[in-house]
C-alpha cells in the first residue's frame, strides 16, 4: 500500500511529521489523545523510581504510546538505538539502565526534537546518550552495532516500514532485541491516497 505513494506524497508526509513534532518539541500537552508527560509514564508502568528521578521538564516531554522496557531488560554495558527518540525520554531511561559502560544513540527526523533530547539528557545528568538526525529507513550505522533497538510510537509514521525493519535487523547484533511500542491500524484506512497522506501524522 505504501508503494502506491508518490515521491511527492512521501515529502508531504515527512513535512506533516516535522510540522506536528515541531509543536511537540515545545510541549506535547494537548496534542495527543492519551496521557503524556509524567501521567503517561505512570500510566504505562515505567519503573516508579526511574520516573521519580526524571526532572520535571524531562518527564513533561514524554509522549510515548507504550512502555518498551516491559518487553525485556536493558543490561549494563549494552549499546542501544532509540529510533525516533523525540525528546529523548526513553533514551535517557535506557542510558540509565545501561549504566556508564553502556551507550544510547537516539535518532529523529526533527532537529528541534533532537535539541530537546540533548537538553533533557543534560538535565537528567545522562552523558552516555547521543542524538543525531537520521531517517529510520536509512540508519547511518554499521551492521551488528546494537544489542537493543527500541522505538516508541514511530514506526506507524515511517513510510517504508519494510525498509526500516530491514535496517533494524541489519544494525542489531546477533541475539539483539527489538523492543517496539507503536500504533497499529484497527479500522479502515481512508480509500483516497490524499486523505491517507493528510491523516498520516495525526
Amino acid at each position, binding site marked *: 500500500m505504501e508503494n502506491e505513494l508518490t515521491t511527492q506524497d512521501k515529502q508531504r508526509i515527512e513535512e506533516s511529521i516535522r510540522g506536528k513534532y515541531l509543536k511537540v518539541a515545545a510541549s506535547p500537552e494537548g496534542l495527543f489523545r492519551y496521557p503524556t508527560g509524567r501521567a503517561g509514564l505512570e500510566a504505562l508502568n515505567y519503573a516508579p523510581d526511574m520516573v521519580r528521578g526524571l526532572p520535571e521538564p524531562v518527564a513533561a516531554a514524554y509522549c510515548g504510546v507504550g512502555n518498551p522496557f516491559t518487553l525485556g531488560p536493558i543490561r549494563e554495558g549494552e549499546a542501544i538505538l532509540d529510533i525516533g527518540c523525540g525528546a529523548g525520554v526513553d533514551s535517557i531511561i535506557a542510558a540509565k539502565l545501561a549504566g556508564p559502560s553502556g551507550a544510547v544513540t537516539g535518532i529523529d527526523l526533527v532537529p528541534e526534537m533532537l535539541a530537546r533530547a540533548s537538553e533533557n539528557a543534560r538535565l537528567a545528568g545522562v552523558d552516555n546518550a547521543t542524538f543525531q538526525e537520521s531517517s529510520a529507513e536509512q540508519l547511518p550505522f554499521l551492521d551488528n552495532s546494537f544489542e537493543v533497538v527500541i522505538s516508541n510510537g514511530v514506526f506507524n509514521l515511517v513510510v517504508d516500514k519494510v525498509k526500516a525493519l530491514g535496517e533494524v535487523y541489519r544494525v542489531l547484533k546477533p541475539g539483539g532485541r527489538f523492543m517496539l511500542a507503536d*500504533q497499529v491500524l484497527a479500522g479502515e484506512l481512508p480509500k483516497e491516497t490524499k486523505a491517507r497522506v493528510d491523516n498520516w501524522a*495525526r
Partner: protein
Amino acid sequence: METGFNSSPVTKGVLFRAVKPVAAAIRERIKPTAVAERREDKMEYLLKRALDLGAEKAKIIDTETVVVAEWVRWKCQYGCPLFEKDPFHPPFAPDAESTKKVLKEYTKAILLNGPNGQTLSEAAVKLEGEAYHRGYYKAFALTALVPSGGAACAPVSSPGAT
C-alpha cells in the same frame, strides 16, 4: 499486547518484541540451502578427500572415456593367480559387456592414482560412502589390483545424472 494508548479511533497502541537470531540459529535455518551444495563444490571436496585418504593423484574423468575390452578378461583367465579366487576376478567379476552397460549409466568418475593398490581400494570404498552421503546415490567403487611394481588405479564412478 495492547497498551491502551490509542492515538486515533482507528489505531491501537501495542507492544512488540523480536530477537535477531544468533549466527548458529541462522546457519541452522539456512541448512536446507547449504545442503544443496553445488555439484562443482561436491566434486572438488571428493577430490580433496581422495588425496586425504592416500591417493597421490585424483582426477575427474568422463566415464565414456573408459575403455572396456574383452582381451583383459582373457589375460586374467589365463595367467592370473586370482582367477576363480574371489568375486573381484573372473569368472565371477562382471564381464566386459555388462561393465560397458553399467558405465553408460554414469557420466563422471574419479580416477585415483598411487603406488599402493590396497590403499587406493580402501580410499575408493570410503569415497563411495562419502559421495553417497552427498547425494551421489549411485556412487560405486571399483577396486585396484595389489601393487606389482607399477602404479595402481581405482575409479569411483559417480553419476552426473540419475
